[in-house]
């Protein structure tokens, strides 16, 4: 596990590293989680910070080029621990629930759950307010992302990155370009299709393929067709696995011909593996945001403020974006990025233009009962 | 003349450079109780295993009932073995153990039952048929092992140190028991042992082996009275071996000048062809020499000092030290008064025909040890 104070990933070891992280993460065996389970909430003095994030979500230090974490530590003197043990929202929730639910704190000072889980944590009262008065750069938050329905005052969350779920594929295996959700159900790819355990992305994409809109869902019936389709595909042996963020390994190795994937992951992987592709299906894709939140009882709020302020500086955010290639929530990044890499600044997957945005749907906020129904139905299909 | 059951024809066995059995030749007659005697490592067990078929001879033949069986696997040879540790099948009852052989031969179950019970009768274990071997004493296990082999009425029964695991009392009882059983079933027994007492007591004939070679084959009394080699003389019973050189020979007697200085006359054996100057040893069995305060004029004798006198019940044991330090043992009738006391100058004397001449000199002059435990410890 990578628990060092710097992110030590390098291109050559990424694959093995991901496999390890994914596997161990999937089993709930991550070291930070174990530490967290021990009930320790204090990870050092005021000048330390622990951010538990998803894999493939930060620019590592590569040779002389410092990554965001190292630049931050250099600029502020804060001792930062950055881990990539966050593989799946439900799984992570299950890990922190017994502690936060019992009024105990967890080890990380910052985590980046997907917006709907952040909403749930907020509703459960398990989040601290952000020290926004110490984060002047918070004004750089994209207006379209301000005050989401689940955090109407915007006091509890700042987006880390946004992005879209679409079809990721390995062209060496498919032998052709993909463009439709329906391609995931092509019998030619039997046993070679990956689906995400992230219910909203998997079901959302299938709904879009069926001409349904996840942004207007109010009851389970609206999505029932998508669940049936998924269930049938699973029974037919079309689906190889339901995975968390560890899908990237199977995609690169060719165990997956295609899968539901996240835009930035695939763009990053392309640097080493040009045969992996990402497409927003013609029927549309889902858009989402992972947001930085501070779990209840976190101690290092000053360091949290410094960190958030640092990554909301457009110049810093641009360097991060240049690597992770997701949709940045920070205003002015496109201009900054144009100075580093004009091609990226023009990539509609990072800076969605009108036509792209029009094809993206963000999930409606589900009521607790409806969400429970969705989750139950989904877990019955994923089986495991 | 009884027919030979087993013939070993120039049988040898090598393990790499090591020659375990070297050109062994002998035959075992039907109904004979035959012992192979020798210290461990002498090749007797290897020879037995070649007869049983567990080992393949390097050269030579094993002939069973006139048929060369050298290449025949054990389960097709009509001989059976009683192993040193019995190796009864622990998961089977006594009955099933004994029935194993007949069942292997696909005997009808009713016949199996009859012959097994018969054989258990012979070894007196009928009541123990349903027990497991672990519930039996050592002697009982031994008898099961015998029954298990004998129930097959093999042409010969091979016994590998069958009494070694028993304590002394039981061993003596089993010697008699084995003899009885052998007489009852009339099968040839080939018996491997390192215990000369056992071999002398039980065998019709003994093959004494040493370092892979058969030193002598003969009846117990032949081997005891007329050992062919110094090894046999020392290994069977106890002997006082005195090295010397033949100084003259007159056709009836040999005159030997002993290393200790004295000169003795010894009756010449039938096959002796010693000439003047031959290096020889004079063997004196301890029970055939007498202590005396002075050597009679017409007798043979040696002078020494009595160092020890041990009363052993029926006999007494005297130890004499000769002038050059050589020790002699003398065993006398305990009822007769010994004329000397320890520390006294004492001589031993013997009739002329009590001495026996062997070729060569022993490694160590004087008495060979007679104690079984000491032999075992020395091995």
């Amino acid at each position, binding site marked *: 596990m990578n628990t060092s104070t710097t992110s030590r990933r390098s291109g050559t070891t990424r694959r093995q590293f991901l496999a390890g992280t994914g596997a161990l993460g999937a089993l709930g065996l991550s070291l930070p989680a174990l530490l967290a389970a021990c009930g320790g909430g204090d990870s050092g003095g005021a000048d330390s910070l622990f951010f538990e994030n998803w894999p493939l979500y930060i620019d590592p230090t590569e040779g002389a080029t410092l990554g965001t974490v190292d630049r931050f530590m250099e600029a502020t003197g804060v001792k930062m621990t950055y881990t990539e043990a966050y593989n799946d929202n439900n799984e992570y929730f299950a890990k922190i629930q017994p502690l936060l639910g019992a009024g105990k704190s967890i080890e990380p000072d910052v985590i980046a759950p997907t917006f709907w889980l952040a909403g749930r944590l907020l509703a459960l009262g398990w989040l601290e307010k952000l020290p926004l008065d110490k984060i002047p750069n918070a004004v750089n938050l994209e207006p379209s992302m301000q005050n989401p329905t689940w955090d109407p005052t915007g006091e509890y969350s700042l987006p880390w990155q946004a992005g879209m779920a679409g079809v990721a594929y390995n062209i060496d295996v498919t032998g052709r370009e993909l463009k439709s959700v329906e391609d995931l159900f092509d019998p030619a790819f*039997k046993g070679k299709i990956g689906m995400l355990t992230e219910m909203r992305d998997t079901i959302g994409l299938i709904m879009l393929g069926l001409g349904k809109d996840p942004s207007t869902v109010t009851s389970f019936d609206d999505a029932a067709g998508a669940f049936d389709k998924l269930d049938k595909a699973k029974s037919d*042996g079309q689906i190889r696995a339901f995975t968390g963020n560890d899908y990237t390994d199977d995609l690169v190795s060719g165990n997956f011909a295609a899968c539901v994937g996240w835009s930035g992951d695939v763009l990053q992987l392309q640097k080493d593996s040009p045969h992996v592709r990402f497409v927003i299906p013609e029927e549309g894709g889902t858009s989402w945001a992972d947001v930085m939140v501070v779990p209840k009882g976190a101690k290092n709020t000053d360091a949290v403020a410094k960190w958030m302020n640092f990554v909301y500086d457009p110049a810093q955010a641009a360097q991060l974006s240049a690597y992770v290639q997701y949709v940045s929530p920070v205003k002015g990044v496109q201009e900054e990025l144009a100075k580093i890499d004009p091609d990226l600044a023009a990539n509609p997957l990072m800076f969605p233009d009108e036509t792209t945005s029009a094809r993206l749907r963000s999930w409606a906020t589900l009521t607790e009962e409806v969400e429970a129904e969705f989750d139950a139905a989904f877990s019955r299909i994923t089986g495991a | 003349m009884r027919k030979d059951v087993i013939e070993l024809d120039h049988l040898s066995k090598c393990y790499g450079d090591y020659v375990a059995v070297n050109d062994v030749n002998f035959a075992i007659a039907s109904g004979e109780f035959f012992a192979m005697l020798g210290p461990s490592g002498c090749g007797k067990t290897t020879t037995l295993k070649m007869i049983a078929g567990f080992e393949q001879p390097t050269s030579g033949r094993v002939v069973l009932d006139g048929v060369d069986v050298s290449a025949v696997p054990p389960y097709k040879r009509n001989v059976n073995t009683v192993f040193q540790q019995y190796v009864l099948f622990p998961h089977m009852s006594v009955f099933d153990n004994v029935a194993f052989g007949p069942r*292997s031969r696909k005997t009808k179950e009713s016949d199996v039952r009859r012959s097994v019970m018969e054989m258990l009768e012979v070894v007196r274990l009928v009541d123990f048929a349903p027990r497991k071997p672990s519930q039996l004493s050592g002697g009982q296990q031994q008898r099961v092992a015998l029954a298990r082999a004998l129930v097959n009425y093999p042409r010969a029964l091979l016994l590998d140190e069958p009494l070694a695991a028993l304590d002394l009392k039981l061993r003596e009882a089993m010697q008699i028991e084995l003899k009885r059983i052998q007489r009852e079933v009339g099968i040839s027994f080939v018996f491997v042992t390192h215990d000369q007492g056992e071999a002398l007591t039980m065998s019709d004939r003994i093959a004494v082996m040493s370092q892979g070679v058969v030193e002598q084959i003969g009846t117990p009394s032949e081997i005891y009275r007329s050992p062919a080699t110094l090894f046999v003389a020392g290994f069977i019973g106890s002997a006082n071996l005195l090295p010397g050189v033949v100084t003259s020979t007159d056709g009836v007697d040999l005159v030997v000048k002993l290393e200790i200085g004295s000169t003795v006359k010894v009756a010449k054996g039938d096959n002796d062809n010693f000439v003047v100057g031959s290096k020889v040893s004079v063997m004196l069995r301890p029970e055939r020499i007498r202590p005396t305060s002075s050597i009679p004029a017409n007798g043979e004798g040696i002078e020494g000092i009595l160092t020890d006198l041990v009363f052993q019940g029926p006999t007494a044991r005297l130890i004499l030290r000769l002038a050059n330090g050589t020790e002699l043992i003398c065993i006398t009738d305990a009822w007769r008064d010994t004329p000397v006391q320890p520390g006294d100058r004492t001589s031993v004397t013997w009739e002329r025909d009590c001495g026996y001449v062997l070729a060569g000199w022993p490694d160590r002059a004087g008495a060979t040890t007679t104690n079984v435990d000491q032999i075992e410890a020395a091995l």
Partner: protein
Amino acid sequence: MNTTLLVPARQRVGRNADRVGLGALIVASTCLVALGAGWVGGAFRPVVVLVLVAVVVGLLVLVAIGGPQARRLLAPYGLLQPGILWLALFFLAPVWSLLRISLSTKPSRFSVDYTFSWAFENYTTAFRDFGKQFEHAFVYAAVATVLTVLIGYPLAYVIAFRGGKYKNILLGLVVIPFFTSYLIRTIAWSTILADRGPTVAILHNVGLVRLFEVLHIMNNGQLLNTPAAVIGGLTYNFLPFMLLPIYVSLEKIDTNLVNAANDLYSSSVRAFRKIVLPLSIPGVFAGTLLTFIPAAGDFVNAQFLGSPNTTMIGNSIQDQFLKQNNYPVASAMAAVLMVSIASLVLIYTRLFGTGDLA
């Protein structure tokens, strides 16, 4: 002095020491289960701890003043004590908790507490929704166990009887791979058997794919994602648990027993069937239990080598515990698994038990 007064009391105590010992054992175990299973909370917890300590101290005092008779009567309880208390704390208490939670409901969806309510519907859910996973678990584990016997027995036999001076090296070769983490080994297999990995490529080149498809070892040109892959993983991972007990039981067999059987007109085949096999059955029996029980509860192989259609009950339990947060249903599934395995083992022991050889 009051020794005269103490003597009758001491004798009385001494005579009844065994009853006191039994009582103390029961009270102490109950206290431990109560603490371990969380029967008591809040202010009562220290009380229970106090009772526990009092019982232990009381016993020690009794031993000190009770005289030799009391000590003799108490000795068996003293010897039993550690084992019983260990069982109480680490077996009875967890099982009690498990059963209790399996009959509980959650007051709200994200609650961390459970209300005990005789909620047998958890068991209904376990059977209704996860019947397939139970079936997979038992079938895969059973097939894997049979395969480990078929592979492990000859291997153990060769090492034990033909290994000679290489015995320890051969055993080492069997065991050394298992020094690496279970997980890493399983993931390694998923790489070895990957669709675009070396194994599939070789099978394609030598044209065995069709045969393997017919044998259901491959499906759709893949080695992974099949029941065969999961069973293969289980077989590989549990092989040493089968091989080592068999090896030990074979190693103990005196080779002279085989010689004796040969000598008694048995061919090698019959000697094996009548002597070696029966004597090694205790090893096979132990190996079967050591393999089947953990294999039936395994989830790692199904996760990395299987597909969503080959999930085993272990995966479902893990999912319910660790992702769905559904402790009651997860506990019900775990309880069903435990009881099923226990019953199977009991039946197996009755049918093939080798008590008289043990």
